[in-house]
């Protein structure tokens, strides 16, 4: 009997030892050790996905880059795609919400282009399926780039250099909305973040993340439950949630996804953004109401502000100040080294 008791005690002590060394997490699903196979789901696919009929190549990227930086794609000739999606500002604009034609303040933040290639749905309200579907939208919107697209295509079809670029990129196809969209989408698919400290840690570099960042990751997938929506591998579920922002309490608030799917649950719901490169894309939320990552984590820790149609997947989890710091530190591990982008020489008028 005494022998059995000793064996049992030894087993209990062994389990306690393992847990105390944090080799196994309470969260169960993952082993928080650099390079452990349980973490692999957080690695993005090696090949960037693209739709049928728009396989990326050098000519398409070259054309897409020129179009992306060309302000002549806007009505006043002073706004390019890069105005709101500036690679030097995390492929966003650093503003709470975007500014459109004549600096008109718009209702929603400019989402980053980083890793939109992996999104299965685009825009804050998911009204566009792919980058190709989305590309003409800002040009056509009178409050955004306000471009007369008939005039645009007439000009592109008369510009010798653009004619030659389109011919090389999409031989046999017209210079029109489909080819402009495909070229822009192809260039946008080069804005990839997949070499962050977190990625390197997942691949096996035990020094890539600090102890605090690993603690933050444990909280992220465990107690704080962030990964329910900011899920692997691109830190988004491509889903829609009302996260109880203060602006939801405004008179005539932005209804978000409800405009596309008229269901009660979708009132005030917006698409879960990726958290990759999050440090570079402040301010946060679709209304730009959070200035810092600390503000973001505080918001979730208190379970939202206006809770009249709160996402059922958003649970209030009281986090201590140090736990909030750990999560913020973890999110700082989601940036890859900065990739400089050279400005393209644009075709002459």
């Amino acid at each position, binding site marked *: 009997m005494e022998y059995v008791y000793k064996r049992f005690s030894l087993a209990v002590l062994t389990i306690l030892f393992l847990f105390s060394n944090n080799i196994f997490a309470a969260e169960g699903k993952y082993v928080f050790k650099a390079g452990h196979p349980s973490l692999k789901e957080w690695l993005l696919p090696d090949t960037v996905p693209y739709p049928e009929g728009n396989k990326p190549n050098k000519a398409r990227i070259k054309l897409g880059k020129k179009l992306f930086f060309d302000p002549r794609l806007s009505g006043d000739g002073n706004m390019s795609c890069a105005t709101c999606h500036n690679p030097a500002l995390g492929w966003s604009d650093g503003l709470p919400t975007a500014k459109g034609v004549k600096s008109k303040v718009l209702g929603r933040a400019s989402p980053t282009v980083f890793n939109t290639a992996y999104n299965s*749905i685009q825009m804050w309200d998911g009204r566009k399926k792919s980058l190709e579907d989305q590309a003409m939208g800002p040009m056509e919107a009178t409050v955004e780039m306000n471009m007369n697209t008939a005039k645009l295509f007439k000009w592109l079809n008369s510009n010798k250099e653009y004619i030659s670029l389109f011919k090389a990129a999409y031989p046999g196809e017209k210079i029109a909305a489909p080819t402009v969209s495909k070229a822009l989408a192809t260039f946008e698919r080069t804005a990839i973040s997949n070499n962050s400290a977190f990625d390197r840690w997942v691949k096996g570099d035990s020094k890539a993340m600090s102890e605090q960042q690993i603690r933050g990751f444990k909280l992220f997938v465990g107690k704080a439950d962030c990964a329910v929506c900011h899920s692997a591998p691109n830190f988004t*579920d*491509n889903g*829609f*949630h009302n996260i109880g922002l203060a602006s939801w309490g405004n008179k005539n608030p932005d209804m978000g996804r409800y405009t596309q799917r008229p*269901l009660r*649950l979708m009132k005030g719901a917006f698409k879960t953004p990726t958290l990759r490169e999050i440090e570079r894309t402040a301010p946060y939320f679709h209304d730009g109401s959070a200035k810092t990552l600390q503000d973001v984590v505080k918001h979730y820790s208190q379970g939202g502000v206006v809770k009249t149609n709160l996402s059922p*997947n958003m649970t209030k989890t009281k986090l201590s100040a140090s736990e909030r710091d750990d999560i913020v530190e973890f999110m700082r591990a989601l940036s890859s080294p900065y990739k400089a982008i050279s400005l393209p020489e644009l075709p002459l008028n």
Partner: protein
Amino acid sequence: MFNRFLVIATCLILSSVSFAAEFEVGQKNKQFTKRSLTIKAGDVVKFTNEDPFFHNVFSLSEIKTFDLGSYPKGEFKTVTFDKKGKAEIECAIHPNMRMTITVE
């Protein structure tokens, strides 16, 4: 005469009840466990959430419009499909979750 009518009516009701079948569709790993399902008019589909977070089930299809709201792991809701045709079923929270039910 009345008794005979009663017997026939009861038989008809029972026979129609016995034809209604129940099909189960799970919601697991942010997917419906079936991408398509063929049923008969009057059959019932039971949607069970098997994920550790909330899902929704809705359809805005012509043959059946419904919104089951949201419910957590282990819970289920049922829908009876009365009309013939095709219904696109989705989760509003996770739009990648889609399936088609063909009612014959």
